[in-house]
C-alpha cells in the first residue's frame, strides 16, 4: 500500500448510507422482477408479480429519508433539494461525473415509476379501479399498449440505480472501494437477490396458490446466491494485499460469518433440504437470512471498508 493512502480522508459514511444502499437494492430487485413477471410471465405470474410493486415505492421513499439524515448540514431537508437544484446558479445540477448526482436523478425519476406501479398494485389487489383517479391510465401503463415501453424504461432505471449503489463507492479514492471493480456487480446481484427474498417472504400466506411462481423466484434466487458467492471470492482475490482488511477481525467475521455463511450458505442449505427445520420454517428463515446477509454485506462494504 502506498503511504499516501493513509493520508486519505474518510467520508464517515455509516448506518444511513448502509441502510440506503441496502433498501435501494431491495427496491430495485423487487421492481425488476415484478416488471419481468408482467412482461414475460404467464397470466398467473402477471397476477402474482404485482407483489413486488408494493415494496419499491415505500423503500425508495425510505432511501430519500436516509439520505436526508446522512447530510451533515443542519438544514437537511433544504439540502436535499439542492442535490437537484442549485440556488446559486438558478440551474439544475446534472453531473455525469458525479455518481451521487446521477443517482439522485435516477432515483427521482424512478420514484415516479415506483409510485405509479405502487398505485397499480393497490388498485389491482383491492379492486378499486373505479375509486382511484387516473386508474385507467395507471392500469394502462402496466397492461395496455404502452406496457412494454413503460416497463422497459422502469427496468432500465431500476437497473441503473442498482448499478449506481456500487459505482458510488468505486468512483472514489478510498482504497478498498476503488481497488476492485467488482463491487457494482456484487451489489446488483445482491440487490436483486434480496428483492426476490422480500417478494417471496411477502407471499408466505399465498404459498399454496402461488406455489409455482414462488418456486420459480426461489430457483432464480438460488442461482443468484451461487453467483454472489463466486463474486465475493472474486472481490477478495481482486483486493490483493488489501484483502487483509476485509477478511480479518470484525470485517472477516461479518463477511464470512454474516454474509457468506448465514446469508448465503445456510439459505442455500435450507432450500436444498427444507425438512431440516420444517418446510414453513425453512421457507421463512432462508429468505429472512438472505435479507440479513444483504444488509451485513452493505455494512461491511461501506462501514467495514472504512475502518483501517
Amino acid at each position: 500500500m502506498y503511504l499516501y493512502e493513509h493520508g486519505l480522508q474518510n467520508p464517515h459514511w455509516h448506518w444511513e448510507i448502509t441502510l440506503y444502499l441496502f433498501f435501494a437494492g431491495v427496491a430495485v430487485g423487487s421492481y425488476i422482477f415484478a416488471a419481468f413477471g408482467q412482461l414475460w410471465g404467464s397470466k398467473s405470474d402477471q397476477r402474482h408479480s404485482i407483489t413486488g410493486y408494493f415494496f419499491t415505492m415505500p423503500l425508495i421513499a425510505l432511501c430519500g429519508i436516509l439520505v436526508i439524515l446522512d447530510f451533515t448540514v443542519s438544514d437537511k431537508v433544504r439540502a436535499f433539494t439542492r442535490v437537484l437544484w442549485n440556488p446559486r446558479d438558478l440551474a439544475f445540477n446534472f453531473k455525469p461525473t458525479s455518481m451521487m448526482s446521477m443517482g439522485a436523478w435516477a432515483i427521482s425519476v424512478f420514484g415516479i415509476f415506483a409510485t405509479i406501479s405502487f398505485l397499480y398494485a393497490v388498485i389491482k389487489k383491492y379492486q378499486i379501479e373505479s375509486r382511484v383517479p387516473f386508474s385507467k391510465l395507471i392500469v394502462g401503463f402496466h397492461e395496455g399498449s404502452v406496457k412494454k415501453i413503460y416497463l422497459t424504461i422502469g427496468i432500465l432505471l431500476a437497473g441503473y440505480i442498482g448499478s449506481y449503489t456500487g459505482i458510488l463507492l468505486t468512483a472514489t479514492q478510498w482504497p478498498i472501494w476503488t481497488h476492485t471493480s467488482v463491487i457494482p456487480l456484487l451489489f446488483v446481484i445482491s440487490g436483486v437477490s434480496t428483492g426476490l427474498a422480500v417478494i417471496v417472504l411477502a407471499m408466505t400466506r399465498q404459498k399454496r396458490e402461488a406455489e409455482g411462481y414462488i418456486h420459480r423466484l426461489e430457483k432464480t434466487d438460488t442461482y443468484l446466491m451461487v453467483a454472489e458467492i463466486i463474486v465475493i471470492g472474486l472481490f477478495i482475490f481482486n483486493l490483493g494485499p488489501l484483502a487483509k482488511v476485509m477478511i480479518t477481525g470484525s470485517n472477516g467475521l461479518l463477511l464470512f460469518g454474516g454474509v457468506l455463511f448465514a446469508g448465503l450458505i445456510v439459505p442455500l442449505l435450507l432450500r436444498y433440504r427444507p425438512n431440516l427445520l420444517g418446510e414453513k420454517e425453512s421457507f421463512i428463515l432462508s429468505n429472512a437470512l438472505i435479507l440479513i446477509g444483504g444488509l451485513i454485506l452493505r455494512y461491511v462494504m461501506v462501514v467495514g471498508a472504512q475502518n483501517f
Partner: protein
Amino acid sequence: MAESKGMFVDTSYCTGCKGCQVACKEWNNLPMADHIGFTGNSYDNTEKLSAQNWRHVKFIEQFSDDRSMQRWLFMSDSCKHCQHAGCMQVCPTNAIIRTEFDTVYVDQDVCIGCRYCVAGCPFGVISMDEVSGTAKKCTLCYDRLQEGMQPACAQTCPTGAIQFGNVEELRAKAEARAQVLRKSGEQEVHIYGTEETFGGLNVFYLLLDKPEVYGLPTNGKLPSQKLGRGYVSSLIGLVGVGLAGLLTFRANRMKMLEEQKDEHFSS
C-alpha cells in the same frame, strides 16, 4: 478569468517552522484541534490536513537502519487546486467551483455535507467541519486574492519556500531551481504537479525525493476515470439478471402456452 494563480512550494527551503500553518489558522479563524498529541511516528503534532488545519507541514524523518545517517524532509501541504479536481467532479450540488483565479473553492452556502468530495479527493485534503457540517479546505485565501493580496501562508513563510504568483511564471522558476539543485548533487529532485498529475496542480512542489516518500500519489486516477469499469461491471450483473428473469418467466410461459395449445387440439 484572471491569470491562473497558484503556489510553488520549494521543499528544499522549508525548515518545518510551521509558520505557514499558524498564519493560515489566524487569517481564516480556524479553531484549535480538540486533541493535540504526537503521532508516535514523527515529531509532527498536526498529523494531517483537516477542517481545522487547512495547511500542514509534513515531517518525513528518514533514518538509515543503524541510525547513523538521517535526513528530515519537510513539505508544507495544502489543497493543490488541481486542474482536474476529483472533489469538484464528484460534488453533486456544484458547491465546489473554480474561481476567477483558477483556484478550487467550496461554496459554503451550497454545500450539503454529503461528504462525497472527501472520498473523491486523491490527496485527502477535504474534511468536514463539525460545526457547520460543510466541507472545508484551503481557499488559497480567496478573500485576500480578491483584495490583491497574497495568501497568508506565502506572506508569512520566512524562507521563501512558499512562493505565490502566476502559475506559468512559477513553473519556470521551479524548473530553474530544480536545475540548480541537480547540479549541486541532489539527484532525486522532482517537480510534482505537472500536467500528468490531475491535469496540473496550481499548488505544486519541488521535492527532494520521490513523491511516494512525501505521501503523494504518482498514478492517481480521477473518480470519473473509474466510472467506466464500474458501469461494465454492473452491466455484466444486469445482463445476468435479465437472463435469469427471461429463463424464470419466459420458459414457464412458453410451457403453459404449449400445454394450452395441446389441450385445445385434443378437445
